[in-house]
Protein backbone atom coordinates (compact mmCIF):
# COMPACT_ATOMS: atom_id res chain seq x y z
CA UNK A 1 0.00 0.00 0.00
CA UNK A 2 1.48 3.35 -1.05
CA UNK A 3 1.64 5.84 1.76
CA UNK A 4 0.26 9.13 0.46
CA UNK A 5 3.13 11.60 0.48
CA UNK A 6 2.74 14.93 2.19
CA UNK A 7 2.43 17.85 -0.26
CA UNK A 8 5.83 19.15 0.85
CA UNK A 9 7.39 15.90 -0.26
CA UNK A 10 6.13 16.37 -3.78
CA UNK A 11 7.21 19.99 -3.93
CA UNK A 12 10.74 19.01 -2.95
CA UNK A 13 11.06 16.22 -5.50
CA UNK A 14 12.63 16.87 -8.89
CA UNK A 15 10.25 17.20 -11.82
CA UNK A 16 11.55 14.11 -13.57
CA UNK A 17 10.97 12.07 -10.39
CA UNK A 18 7.35 13.15 -10.37
CA UNK A 19 6.92 12.15 -14.00
CA UNK A 20 8.73 8.83 -13.54
CA UNK A 21 6.61 7.99 -10.49
CA UNK A 22 3.45 8.91 -12.36
CA UNK A 23 4.53 6.63 -15.21
CA UNK A 24 5.18 3.74 -12.81
CA UNK A 25 1.74 4.13 -11.23
CA UNK A 26 0.00 4.25 -14.60
CA UNK A 27 1.76 1.04 -15.62
CA UNK A 28 0.81 -0.65 -12.35
CA UNK A 29 -2.82 0.40 -12.73
CA UNK A 30 -2.87 -0.77 -16.33
CA UNK A 31 -1.46 -4.14 -15.33
CA UNK A 32 -4.71 -4.47 -13.40
CA UNK A 33 -3.62 -6.88 -10.67
CA UNK A 34 -3.66 -4.57 -7.67
CA UNK A 35 -6.17 -5.03 -4.86
CA UNK A 36 -8.97 -2.48 -4.96
CA UNK A 37 -7.82 -0.44 -1.96
CA UNK A 38 -4.32 -0.19 -3.34
CA UNK A 39 -5.39 0.76 -6.83
CA UNK A 40 -7.57 3.53 -5.40
CA UNK A 41 -4.67 4.78 -3.29
CA UNK A 42 -2.32 4.62 -6.27
CA UNK A 43 -4.81 6.42 -8.43
CA UNK A 44 -5.12 9.22 -5.86
CA UNK A 45 -1.32 9.44 -5.80
CA UNK A 46 -1.28 9.65 -9.60
CA UNK A 47 -3.66 12.61 -9.51
CA UNK A 48 -1.49 14.34 -6.92
CA UNK A 49 1.66 13.72 -8.94
CA UNK A 50 -0.03 15.02 -12.05
CA UNK A 51 -1.14 18.17 -10.28
CA UNK A 52 2.27 18.72 -8.71
CA UNK A 53 4.13 18.24 -12.00
CA UNK A 54 1.75 20.51 -13.83
CA UNK A 55 2.10 23.19 -11.18
CA UNK A 56 5.88 22.89 -11.37
CA UNK A 57 5.80 23.52 -15.10
CA UNK A 58 3.41 26.41 -14.80
CA UNK A 59 5.42 28.13 -12.11
CA UNK A 60 8.92 27.25 -13.32
CA UNK A 61 11.34 30.13 -13.62
CA UNK A 62 14.91 29.61 -14.75
CA UNK A 63 17.38 30.02 -11.88
CA UNK A 64 20.64 31.73 -12.72
CA UNK A 65 23.71 32.07 -10.56
CA UNK A 66 27.31 32.89 -11.20
CA UNK A 67 30.61 31.47 -10.03
CA UNK A 68 33.84 33.35 -9.62
CA UNK A 69 32.56 36.89 -9.21
CA UNK A 70 35.51 39.07 -8.25
CA UNK A 71 38.00 36.64 -9.69
CA UNK A 72 39.65 39.52 -11.43
CA UNK A 73 40.99 38.99 -14.88
CA UNK A 74 38.90 35.95 -15.69
CA UNK A 75 35.58 37.70 -15.53
CA UNK A 76 34.83 40.45 -17.97
CA UNK A 77 34.75 43.93 -16.56
CA UNK A 78 31.07 44.52 -17.07
CA UNK A 79 28.47 42.78 -14.93
CA UNK A 80 26.18 40.30 -16.62
CA UNK A 81 22.89 42.10 -16.47
CA UNK A 82 21.51 40.14 -19.40
CA UNK A 83 19.51 37.11 -18.57
CA UNK A 84 19.46 37.49 -14.82
CA UNK A 85 16.15 36.31 -13.56
Amino acid at each position, binding site marked *: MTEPAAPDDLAARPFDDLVAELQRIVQALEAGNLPLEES*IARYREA*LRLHAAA*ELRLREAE*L*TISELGRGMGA*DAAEEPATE*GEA
Partner: protein
Amino acid sequence: MPPDSDQATLWEAPRPAPRILRVSDLNRHIRVLLDGDPALADVWVEGEVSQPSYPPSGHCFFVLKDAASQVKAVLFREELVRATVRPEHGMHVILHGKVRAYEAQGSYQVYVESITPAGAGDLHQQYETLRTKLAAEGLFEERRKRPLPRWPRRIGIVTSPVGAVWRDIGNVMRRRYPIGELVLSPTIVQGPTASGAIVRALHRLYADTSIDLIILARGGGSLEDLWSFNDERVVRTVVEAPMPVVVGVGHESDVTLADFAADLRAPTPSAAAEQAVPDLAQFPAILDRLRDRASAAMISGLADRGAFLGQEGRALTRLLPDTRAARQRSAELVDRGHRALSARTARELAALTGLGDALRALSPTATLERGYAVARLADGSIVRDPAQATVGEPLEVVVARGTLSTRIEATAKTDEEVLR
Protein backbone atom coordinates in the same frame (compact mmCIF):
# COMPACT_ATOMS: atom_id res chain seq x y z
CA MET B 1 67.16 43.02 -75.30
CA PRO B 2 66.91 43.22 -79.10
CA PRO B 3 68.31 46.50 -80.45
CA ASP B 4 65.36 47.13 -82.77
CA SER B 5 62.69 46.98 -80.10
CA ASP B 6 60.86 50.05 -78.83
CA GLN B 7 62.43 49.80 -75.44
CA ALA B 8 65.91 49.82 -76.91
CA THR B 9 65.48 52.71 -79.29
CA LEU B 10 63.76 54.90 -76.79
CA TRP B 11 66.93 55.41 -74.78
CA GLU B 12 69.20 55.64 -77.82
CA ALA B 13 68.03 59.08 -78.90
CA PRO B 14 70.76 61.33 -80.35
CA ARG B 15 72.70 63.06 -77.56
CA PRO B 16 72.66 66.68 -78.57
CA ALA B 17 68.92 66.94 -79.01
CA PRO B 18 67.24 64.83 -76.29
CA ARG B 19 64.04 63.19 -77.36
CA ILE B 20 61.13 64.75 -75.50
CA LEU B 21 58.58 62.15 -74.39
CA ARG B 22 54.98 62.65 -73.83
CA VAL B 23 53.79 61.57 -70.38
CA SER B 24 51.63 58.87 -71.90
CA ASP B 25 54.62 57.52 -73.84
CA LEU B 26 56.55 57.21 -70.60
CA ASN B 27 53.71 55.55 -68.79
CA ARG B 28 53.05 53.19 -71.63
CA HIS B 29 56.71 52.26 -71.66
CA ILE B 30 56.62 51.50 -67.98
CA ARG B 31 53.41 49.51 -68.35
CA VAL B 32 54.91 47.37 -71.06
CA LEU B 33 58.00 46.91 -68.96
CA LEU B 34 56.01 45.69 -65.96
CA ASP B 35 53.73 43.53 -68.09
CA GLY B 36 56.73 41.78 -69.49
CA ASP B 37 58.10 40.73 -66.12
CA PRO B 38 56.81 37.28 -65.26
CA ALA B 39 57.75 37.75 -61.56
CA LEU B 40 55.21 40.55 -61.28
CA ALA B 41 52.44 38.47 -62.84
CA ASP B 42 52.29 36.20 -59.81
CA VAL B 43 53.24 37.85 -56.54
CA TRP B 44 52.57 37.10 -52.90
CA VAL B 45 53.02 40.07 -50.67
CA GLU B 46 52.51 40.51 -46.96
CA GLY B 47 51.71 43.75 -45.18
CA GLU B 48 49.22 45.81 -43.25
CA VAL B 49 46.05 47.17 -44.79
CA SER B 50 45.72 50.92 -44.55
CA GLN B 51 42.70 53.11 -45.23
CA PRO B 52 40.58 50.80 -47.38
CA SER B 53 37.82 52.50 -49.32
CA TYR B 54 34.65 50.94 -50.60
CA PRO B 55 33.23 53.20 -53.36
CA PRO B 56 29.80 52.46 -54.90
CA SER B 57 31.47 50.55 -57.74
CA GLY B 58 31.79 47.64 -55.30
CA HIS B 59 35.55 47.45 -55.63
CA CYS B 60 37.88 47.95 -52.71
CA PHE B 61 40.96 50.17 -52.83
CA PHE B 62 43.56 50.23 -50.12
CA VAL B 63 47.22 50.69 -49.36
CA LEU B 64 49.38 47.83 -48.20
CA LYS B 65 52.33 48.86 -46.11
CA ASP B 66 55.10 47.76 -43.86
CA ALA B 67 57.41 49.79 -41.66
CA ALA B 68 59.30 51.27 -44.60
CA SER B 69 57.13 51.25 -47.72
CA GLN B 70 53.70 51.15 -49.12
CA VAL B 71 51.99 50.03 -52.31
CA LYS B 72 48.52 50.57 -53.69
CA ALA B 73 46.22 47.62 -54.06
CA VAL B 74 42.82 47.03 -55.57
CA LEU B 75 40.39 44.22 -54.93
CA PHE B 76 37.76 44.15 -57.65
CA ARG B 77 34.17 43.41 -56.78
CA GLU B 78 34.25 39.88 -58.16
CA GLU B 79 37.22 38.96 -55.99
CA LEU B 80 35.91 40.86 -53.01
CA VAL B 81 32.74 38.75 -53.03
CA ARG B 82 34.78 35.56 -53.01
CA ALA B 83 37.30 36.75 -50.42
CA THR B 84 37.17 35.19 -46.96
CA VAL B 85 38.14 38.48 -45.34
CA ARG B 86 37.15 42.04 -46.02
CA PRO B 87 40.15 44.36 -45.86
CA GLU B 88 40.03 46.53 -42.77
CA HIS B 89 42.38 49.21 -41.57
CA GLY B 90 45.28 47.71 -39.64
CA MET B 91 44.59 44.17 -40.77
CA HIS B 92 47.68 42.10 -41.37
CA VAL B 93 47.23 40.20 -44.63
CA ILE B 94 48.87 38.27 -47.42
CA LEU B 95 47.86 39.27 -50.94
CA HIS B 96 48.14 37.18 -54.02
CA GLY B 97 47.84 38.77 -57.45
CA LYS B 98 49.78 40.67 -60.09
CA VAL B 99 51.46 44.02 -60.24
CA ARG B 100 50.42 46.27 -63.08
CA ALA B 101 50.97 49.86 -64.00
CA TYR B 102 48.02 52.18 -64.17
CA GLU B 103 48.95 54.47 -67.03
CA ALA B 104 46.42 57.18 -66.38
CA GLN B 105 47.79 57.81 -62.88
CA GLY B 106 51.39 56.99 -63.46
CA SER B 107 51.28 54.50 -60.66
CA TYR B 108 51.46 50.82 -60.20
CA GLN B 109 49.40 48.69 -57.92
CA VAL B 110 48.70 45.17 -56.83
CA TYR B 111 45.64 43.69 -58.51
CA VAL B 112 44.52 41.35 -55.77
CA GLU B 113 43.20 37.91 -56.64
CA SER B 114 43.05 36.56 -53.11
CA ILE B 115 43.55 37.94 -49.65
CA THR B 116 44.11 35.94 -46.46
CA PRO B 117 44.88 36.99 -42.92
CA ALA B 118 48.62 36.76 -42.35
CA GLY B 119 49.52 33.94 -40.03
CA ALA B 120 46.48 31.91 -41.08
CA GLY B 121 48.74 29.50 -42.87
CA ASP B 122 50.71 29.00 -39.67
CA LEU B 123 47.57 28.54 -37.62
CA HIS B 124 46.17 25.96 -40.01
CA GLN B 125 49.46 24.14 -39.77
CA GLN B 126 49.44 24.27 -35.95
CA TYR B 127 45.84 23.14 -35.88
CA GLU B 128 46.53 20.10 -38.04
CA THR B 129 49.67 19.17 -36.09
CA LEU B 130 47.89 19.34 -32.74
CA ARG B 131 44.79 17.59 -34.05
CA THR B 132 46.88 14.70 -35.32
CA LYS B 133 48.78 14.47 -32.05
CA LEU B 134 45.69 14.52 -29.80
CA ALA B 135 43.80 12.15 -32.06
CA ALA B 136 46.72 9.73 -31.82
CA GLU B 137 46.32 9.85 -28.04
CA GLY B 138 42.71 8.77 -28.52
CA LEU B 139 41.27 11.96 -27.02
CA PHE B 140 38.73 12.39 -29.81
CA GLU B 141 37.47 8.82 -29.95
CA GLU B 142 33.76 8.16 -30.00
CA ARG B 143 33.93 5.64 -27.17
CA ARG B 144 35.19 8.38 -24.85
CA LYS B 145 31.99 10.33 -25.33
CA ARG B 146 29.52 10.10 -22.49
CA PRO B 147 25.75 10.37 -22.85
CA LEU B 148 24.25 13.59 -21.54
CA PRO B 149 22.03 13.39 -18.45
CA ARG B 150 18.43 13.43 -19.62
CA TRP B 151 17.33 15.75 -16.84
CA PRO B 152 20.24 17.96 -15.81
CA ARG B 153 19.43 19.96 -12.68
CA ARG B 154 22.39 22.37 -12.58
CA ILE B 155 24.01 23.31 -15.87
CA GLY B 156 27.38 25.07 -15.87
CA ILE B 157 27.94 27.61 -18.65
CA VAL B 158 31.44 28.71 -19.61
CA THR B 159 31.30 31.78 -21.82
CA SER B 160 31.66 35.53 -21.78
CA PRO B 161 29.16 37.18 -19.41
CA VAL B 162 28.70 40.00 -21.91
CA GLY B 163 27.33 39.65 -25.38
CA ALA B 164 24.80 37.64 -27.29
CA VAL B 165 25.93 34.10 -26.47
CA TRP B 166 25.11 34.15 -22.77
CA ARG B 167 21.83 35.95 -23.48
CA ASP B 168 20.89 33.43 -26.21
CA ILE B 169 21.61 30.45 -23.97
CA GLY B 170 19.46 31.98 -21.23
CA ASN B 171 16.63 32.52 -23.70
CA VAL B 172 16.75 28.97 -25.02
CA MET B 173 16.75 27.56 -21.47
CA ARG B 174 13.90 29.81 -20.39
CA ARG B 175 11.84 28.63 -23.35
CA ARG B 176 12.66 24.92 -23.22
CA TYR B 177 13.71 24.05 -19.70
CA PRO B 178 12.75 26.64 -17.09
CA ILE B 179 13.00 24.06 -14.28
CA GLY B 180 16.78 24.00 -14.67
CA GLU B 181 19.44 26.09 -12.99
CA LEU B 182 22.20 27.81 -14.93
CA VAL B 183 25.54 28.43 -13.24
CA LEU B 184 27.65 30.87 -15.21
CA SER B 185 31.39 30.53 -14.89
CA PRO B 186 32.46 33.68 -16.73
CA THR B 187 35.57 33.90 -18.86
CA ILE B 188 37.06 35.93 -21.62
CA VAL B 189 36.91 33.98 -24.88
CA GLN B 190 39.35 35.84 -27.08
CA GLY B 191 42.88 37.12 -26.95
CA PRO B 192 46.21 35.82 -25.70
CA THR B 193 45.04 35.19 -22.12
CA ALA B 194 41.75 33.54 -23.05
CA SER B 195 43.00 29.95 -23.01
CA GLY B 196 44.13 30.15 -19.39
CA ALA B 197 40.90 31.90 -18.42
CA ILE B 198 38.77 29.22 -20.09
CA VAL B 199 40.71 26.47 -18.32
CA ARG B 200 40.18 28.18 -14.94
CA ALA B 201 36.48 28.75 -15.65
CA LEU B 202 36.06 25.04 -16.44
CA HIS B 203 37.92 24.01 -13.27
CA ARG B 204 35.67 26.20 -11.13
CA LEU B 205 32.73 24.13 -12.37
CA TYR B 206 34.59 20.83 -12.05
CA ALA B 207 35.03 21.62 -8.35
CA ASP B 208 31.25 21.77 -7.91
CA THR B 209 29.99 18.19 -7.87
CA SER B 210 26.37 19.26 -8.14
CA ILE B 211 26.92 20.40 -11.73
CA ASP B 212 25.39 17.78 -14.05
CA LEU B 213 26.49 19.17 -17.38
CA ILE B 214 28.67 21.93 -18.84
CA ILE B 215 28.18 24.03 -21.95
CA LEU B 216 31.31 25.70 -23.33
CA ALA B 217 30.29 28.32 -25.86
CA ARG B 218 31.47 31.24 -27.94
CA GLY B 219 30.02 33.18 -30.87
CA GLY B 220 31.40 33.21 -34.38
CA GLY B 221 34.65 34.82 -35.43
CA SER B 222 37.79 34.42 -37.46
CA LEU B 223 40.17 31.53 -36.99
CA GLU B 224 42.28 33.83 -34.80
CA ASP B 225 39.24 34.81 -32.72
CA LEU B 226 38.40 31.18 -32.04
CA TRP B 227 42.01 30.19 -31.50
CA SER B 228 41.74 29.64 -27.71
CA PHE B 229 39.44 26.72 -28.44
CA ASN B 230 42.28 25.05 -30.33
CA ASP B 231 44.65 25.50 -27.41
CA GLU B 232 46.06 22.22 -26.15
CA ARG B 233 45.38 23.08 -22.48
CA VAL B 234 41.74 23.89 -23.23
CA VAL B 235 41.30 20.68 -25.22
CA ARG B 236 42.86 18.56 -22.47
CA THR B 237 40.77 20.29 -19.80
CA VAL B 238 37.59 19.48 -21.73
CA VAL B 239 38.69 15.85 -21.97
CA GLU B 240 39.30 15.71 -18.19
CA ALA B 241 35.83 16.98 -17.29
CA PRO B 242 34.15 14.90 -14.56
CA MET B 243 30.75 15.65 -16.10
CA PRO B 244 29.71 15.68 -19.78
CA VAL B 245 30.62 18.78 -21.78
CA VAL B 246 28.74 20.21 -24.76
CA VAL B 247 30.82 22.54 -26.93
CA GLY B 248 29.15 25.08 -29.22
CA VAL B 249 31.68 27.46 -30.74
CA GLY B 250 31.28 29.78 -33.70
CA HIS B 251 29.09 28.93 -36.66
CA GLU B 252 28.23 25.64 -38.34
CA SER B 253 31.46 25.53 -40.31
CA ASP B 254 33.81 26.26 -37.40
CA VAL B 255 35.16 23.08 -35.89
CA THR B 256 37.68 23.68 -33.14
CA LEU B 257 39.72 21.01 -31.38
CA ALA B 258 37.58 21.59 -28.27
CA ASP B 259 34.61 20.49 -30.40
CA PHE B 260 36.35 17.19 -31.12
CA ALA B 261 37.05 16.69 -27.41
CA ALA B 262 33.46 17.40 -26.34
CA ASP B 263 30.99 14.71 -25.35
CA LEU B 264 28.61 16.44 -27.73
CA ARG B 265 29.51 18.92 -30.44
CA ALA B 266 26.85 21.49 -31.27
CA PRO B 267 27.12 23.72 -34.34
CA THR B 268 26.35 26.96 -32.45
CA PRO B 269 25.93 28.17 -28.85
CA SER B 270 22.12 28.19 -29.14
CA ALA B 271 22.14 24.69 -30.59
CA ALA B 272 24.30 23.59 -27.65
CA ALA B 273 21.65 24.84 -25.24
CA GLU B 274 18.90 23.14 -27.23
CA GLN B 275 20.67 19.80 -27.38
CA ALA B 276 21.56 19.87 -23.68
CA VAL B 277 18.00 19.74 -22.32
CA PRO B 278 14.62 18.21 -23.19
CA ASP B 279 11.87 20.49 -24.44
CA LEU B 280 9.34 20.85 -21.64
CA ALA B 281 6.86 22.53 -23.97
CA GLN B 282 5.55 19.03 -24.75
CA PHE B 283 5.13 18.04 -21.13
CA PRO B 284 1.70 19.39 -20.24
CA ALA B 285 0.30 17.12 -22.98
CA ILE B 286 2.42 14.15 -21.83
CA LEU B 287 1.27 14.61 -18.23
CA ASP B 288 -2.37 14.77 -19.28
CA ARG B 289 -2.04 11.58 -21.30
CA LEU B 290 -0.57 9.80 -18.27
CA ARG B 291 -3.41 11.00 -16.04
CA ASP B 292 -5.98 9.90 -18.63
CA ARG B 293 -4.38 6.46 -18.84
CA ALA B 294 -4.57 6.18 -15.03
CA SER B 295 -8.26 7.12 -15.16
CA ALA B 296 -8.97 4.65 -17.94
CA ALA B 297 -7.23 1.86 -16.04
CA MET B 298 -9.20 2.66 -12.89
CA ILE B 299 -12.51 2.77 -14.72
CA SER B 300 -11.92 -0.48 -16.49
CA GLY B 301 -10.74 -2.05 -13.21
CA LEU B 302 -13.90 -0.93 -11.47
CA ALA B 303 -16.02 -2.21 -14.33
CA ASP B 304 -14.38 -5.63 -14.01
CA ARG B 305 -15.06 -5.60 -10.31
CA GLY B 306 -18.63 -4.53 -10.96
CA ALA B 307 -19.11 -7.56 -13.17
CA PHE B 308 -17.58 -9.77 -10.49
CA LEU B 309 -19.81 -8.27 -7.79
CA GLY B 310 -22.77 -8.89 -10.02
CA GLN B 311 -21.96 -12.61 -10.12
CA GLU B 312 -21.33 -12.70 -6.39
CA GLY B 313 -24.56 -10.88 -5.69
CA ARG B 314 -26.58 -13.29 -7.83
CA ALA B 315 -24.91 -16.28 -6.24
CA LEU B 316 -25.63 -14.90 -2.83
CA THR B 317 -29.28 -14.20 -3.51
CA ARG B 318 -29.79 -17.81 -4.62
CA LEU B 319 -28.87 -18.92 -1.14
CA LEU B 320 -31.27 -16.66 0.66
CA PRO B 321 -34.83 -17.87 1.06
CA ASP B 322 -37.86 -15.68 0.47
CA THR B 323 -36.02 -12.73 -0.90
CA ARG B 324 -37.65 -12.50 -4.29
CA ALA B 325 -38.26 -8.80 -4.08
CA ALA B 326 -34.86 -8.08 -2.58
CA ARG B 327 -33.28 -10.31 -5.16
CA GLN B 328 -34.94 -8.49 -7.97
CA ARG B 329 -33.99 -5.18 -6.49
CA SER B 330 -30.42 -6.34 -5.99
CA ALA B 331 -30.08 -7.69 -9.49
CA GLU B 332 -31.52 -4.49 -10.84
CA LEU B 333 -29.05 -2.40 -8.92
CA VAL B 334 -26.17 -4.57 -9.92
CA ASP B 335 -27.11 -4.44 -13.58
CA ARG B 336 -27.67 -0.73 -13.47
CA GLY B 337 -24.29 -0.16 -11.89
CA HIS B 338 -22.68 -2.50 -14.33
CA ARG B 339 -24.26 -0.80 -17.31
CA ALA B 340 -23.10 2.59 -16.09
CA LEU B 341 -19.57 1.33 -15.69
CA SER B 342 -19.49 -0.58 -18.97
CA ALA B 343 -20.65 2.43 -20.89
CA ARG B 344 -17.70 4.32 -19.55
CA THR B 345 -15.27 1.57 -20.34
CA ALA B 346 -16.36 1.66 -23.94
CA ARG B 347 -15.26 5.23 -24.48
CA GLU B 348 -12.19 6.05 -26.43
CA LEU B 349 -9.13 6.59 -24.24
CA ALA B 350 -8.36 9.75 -26.13
CA ALA B 351 -11.64 11.28 -25.01
CA LEU B 352 -10.83 10.70 -21.35
CA THR B 353 -9.58 14.16 -20.43
CA GLY B 354 -11.59 15.36 -17.49
CA LEU B 355 -12.62 11.89 -16.41
CA GLY B 356 -10.22 12.20 -13.50
CA ASP B 357 -12.85 14.33 -11.79
CA ALA B 358 -15.56 11.88 -12.67
CA LEU B 359 -13.51 9.07 -11.26
CA ARG B 360 -12.94 10.89 -8.02
CA ALA B 361 -16.69 10.59 -7.54
CA LEU B 362 -16.37 6.84 -7.82
CA SER B 363 -15.09 6.54 -4.28
CA PRO B 364 -16.15 3.51 -2.23
CA THR B 365 -18.83 5.66 -0.57
CA ALA B 366 -20.35 6.50 -3.94
CA THR B 367 -20.23 2.84 -4.91
CA LEU B 368 -22.10 1.93 -1.74
CA GLU B 369 -24.62 4.62 -2.54
CA ARG B 370 -25.44 2.76 -5.71
CA GLY B 371 -26.41 -0.29 -3.69
CA TYR B 372 -23.23 -2.29 -3.31
CA ALA B 373 -22.24 -3.60 0.10
CA VAL B 374 -18.95 -4.51 1.65
CA ALA B 375 -18.78 -7.54 3.90
CA ARG B 376 -16.28 -7.48 6.75
CA LEU B 377 -15.25 -10.06 9.28
CA ALA B 378 -14.79 -9.27 12.95
CA ASP B 379 -11.08 -8.53 12.37
CA GLY B 380 -12.02 -5.89 9.80
CA SER B 381 -10.83 -7.82 6.74
CA ILE B 382 -12.95 -7.55 3.63
CA VAL B 383 -14.48 -10.78 2.43
CA ARG B 384 -13.65 -11.62 -1.18
CA ASP B 385 -13.63 -15.36 -0.95
CA PRO B 386 -16.11 -17.56 0.95
CA ALA B 387 -13.09 -19.53 2.13
CA GLN B 388 -12.13 -16.57 4.31
CA ALA B 389 -15.19 -17.07 6.48
CA THR B 390 -16.57 -19.86 8.56
CA VAL B 391 -20.21 -20.65 9.19
CA GLY B 392 -21.51 -19.02 12.33
CA GLU B 393 -18.88 -16.29 12.30
CA PRO B 394 -20.22 -12.74 12.77
CA LEU B 395 -20.26 -10.66 9.59
CA GLU B 396 -20.59 -6.93 9.29
CA VAL B 397 -22.22 -5.70 6.10
CA VAL B 398 -21.43 -2.08 5.28
CA VAL B 399 -24.04 -0.32 3.19
CA ALA B 400 -24.27 3.30 2.15
CA ARG B 401 -25.85 4.64 5.30
CA GLY B 402 -24.79 2.24 7.99
CA THR B 403 -23.83 -1.28 8.88
CA LEU B 404 -25.72 -4.52 9.38
CA SER B 405 -24.52 -7.11 11.85
CA THR B 406 -25.24 -10.66 10.87
CA ARG B 407 -23.83 -14.16 10.99
CA ILE B 408 -22.71 -16.43 8.21
CA GLU B 409 -25.16 -19.22 7.61
CA ALA B 410 -23.43 -20.99 4.79
CA THR B 411 -20.55 -20.55 2.34
CA ALA B 412 -20.29 -21.56 -1.30
CA LYS B 413 -17.77 -20.91 -4.01
CA THR B 414 -18.68 -19.75 -7.51
CA ASP B 415 -17.12 -21.07 -10.68
CA GLU B 416 -13.39 -20.62 -10.95
CA GLU B 417 -13.46 -18.62 -14.20
CA VAL B 418 -15.47 -15.87 -12.59
CA LEU B 419 -12.68 -15.32 -10.13
CA ARG B 420 -10.20 -14.77 -12.93
